[in-house]
């Protein structure tokens, strides 16, 4: 069952064409990685999905055409975007950040349960629950960003550079927790990541973007075996 489907997606910032026909397919409960160099269009692909960039081509979610929708409409369909730079709400407490994540939900009880779930998944947040988000460390902010996405009970999560700027051990903690989340919740994921090693611990398959186009697509195992991938992204 395909949950998200991108076909020939294009996008540009002013005169600069950033996406030049990107395709992507994410099955229900699947996890797909997007790899590539800086400026290859990874982040823009996620933005095209969540409606923050005007895009051409075809983007369907659950069989519905979502291209051209506003970000909040896309979110309402069950797509949670964890943006690059985390997008936590600095002047709100950790708990309020999580409550904002649950904005569209009406089930009060379920919300409280899910807050507990987030705190269980990220124990660091437990002790900072009344701190302002701006006072958190980078790793904690990343956890909070993922937690906020969880709160919206999404069917698909878009993760953008979750390891950026984090110490390797912290990055690993974050990815471990996300993997646990994936197993326990079955949320499908699109994972953008510079660090391919980390990405491959989470995703089943991946596509490599180069100047706004799919250069290579394959399962994690296939891609891991390729020399070019290894040289460019796996540090070997």
């Amino acid at each position, binding site marked *: 069952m395909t949950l998200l489907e991108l076909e020939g997606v294009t996008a*540009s*910032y002013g*005169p*600069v064409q950033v996406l030049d026909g990107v395709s992507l397919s994410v099955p229900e409960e699947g996890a797909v990685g997007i790899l590539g*160099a*800086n*400026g*290859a269009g990874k982040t823009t692909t996620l933005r095209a999905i969540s409606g923050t*960039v005007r895009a051409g081509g075809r983007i369907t979610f659950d069989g519905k055409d979502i291209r051209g929708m506003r970000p909040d409409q896309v979110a309402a369909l069950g797509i949670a975007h964890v943006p690059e*730079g985390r997008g936590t709400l600095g002047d709100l407490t950790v708990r309020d950040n999580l409550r904002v994540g649950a904005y569209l939900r009406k089930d009060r009880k379920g919300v409280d349960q899910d807050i507990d779930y987030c705190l269980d998944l990220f124990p660091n947040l437990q002790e900072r629950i009344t701190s302002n988000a701006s006072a958190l460390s980078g790793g904690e902010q990343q956890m909070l960003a993922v937690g906020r996405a969880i709160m919206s009970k999404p069917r698909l999560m878009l993760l953008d550079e979750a390891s950026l700027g984090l110490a390797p051990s912290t990055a690993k903690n974050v990815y471990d927790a996300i993997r646990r989340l994936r197993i326990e919740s079955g949320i499908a994921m699109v994972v953008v990541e510079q660090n391919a090693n980390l990405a491959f611990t989470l995703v089943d398959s991946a596509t490599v973007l180069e100047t706004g186009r799919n250069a290579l697509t394959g399962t994690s195992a296939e891609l891991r075996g390729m020399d070019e991938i290894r040289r460019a992204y796996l540090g070997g």
Partner: protein
Amino acid sequence: MASSPKTSASTTSAPASSATTSSASSFRQRPWVRWGAPLLLVVGLAVLPLVMTEGANDTLARIGVFAVAVLGLNVVMGYTGQVSLGQIFFLGLGAYVTAYGVQSGWNIVLVFVLTCLIPAVAGLLVALAAARLGGLAIAMVTIALPIVGVPLAKRLSDFTGGSQGLSARFVEAPEGSGLYDDQWQLYLVLVIGGIVFLMTSLLVRGKYGRAFAIVKGNENVASSMGISPYRYKVLAFTIASLIGGVSGFLYMVVVQYTSPETMSFGHSIELLVAMVIGGAGSIVGSLLGGAFYVIVPDVTNAIDPSLTALLQGALLLAVLFVLPGGLVSLPRALTRRLRRSPAGRGSAAPPTTPSSTPGSGTAAEQSETERQGHA
């Protein structure tokens, strides 16, 4: 296959824009343009007062006065990012120093030096205290300057003439020059204002300007680079005050009268408006801002004197609605429009807030850390 992702990234980021800037800058670098254009400007400005009507000379001189005041505001606000709502206070202070000095019969050169020094020292003292505060707090402390300055000027009536103010007619054209007073005044404004503009543009393009930009962009980054935000904020504020003092001198050259009304809070707000309308963080923008400050009341008066406020408000909103970057962005907006229309492509909304950091090399290298800081 990209073997070195880092370099490919930087080339894909902005090929089109870098192409246009390089062609423009090479045009600017041709020797005859480099030297000819400023020369032409100087000659033009030298001839202008002789051929224009008295009214036009007067208008131009007033534009010069307020362009200098806006320039000072730009140093602290446009370039260094510290909101100042007190710039008019330094203009008023400079005007009072000039008026008092002239009335006391001091040498005019001494008066000018004091007109620079006293506001600069006052600005320094205020800044030493105010620069410890950030953001809106600094705005509130600077608001206090005109608010408290007006009653203070009334109280110090021995120096200021109280609410009746001080007159000083000291810039009659020298005997034998064959110039009318308005021409002589305009020359003074052009020369003094020109020097201030030249020095300021050198300042903001140089080492200090880059430091200002980094402080504006992110103070934490600045600290990590060994640039003390506090010290540069104080410096910027002091320079702004000094320039404000000079504009006060020019004010006395042109208006020849000052009173507490000169530094009322409303005018400080109008200077802020002029700075943004002209274009924040821009030398040319300061000039355009000064022109806006002076011309708009005249134009609205000419249209209908009983509707000035309504028309001024509408005009301000209309300009910013079309040109959010200020008048100085007009050429850019025009070329963008021209470039876009043949392409016929729908514009992509820029995903992030337009960065306020000028693209200087050092700031760009830091952008990644900065982004995390803002997250």
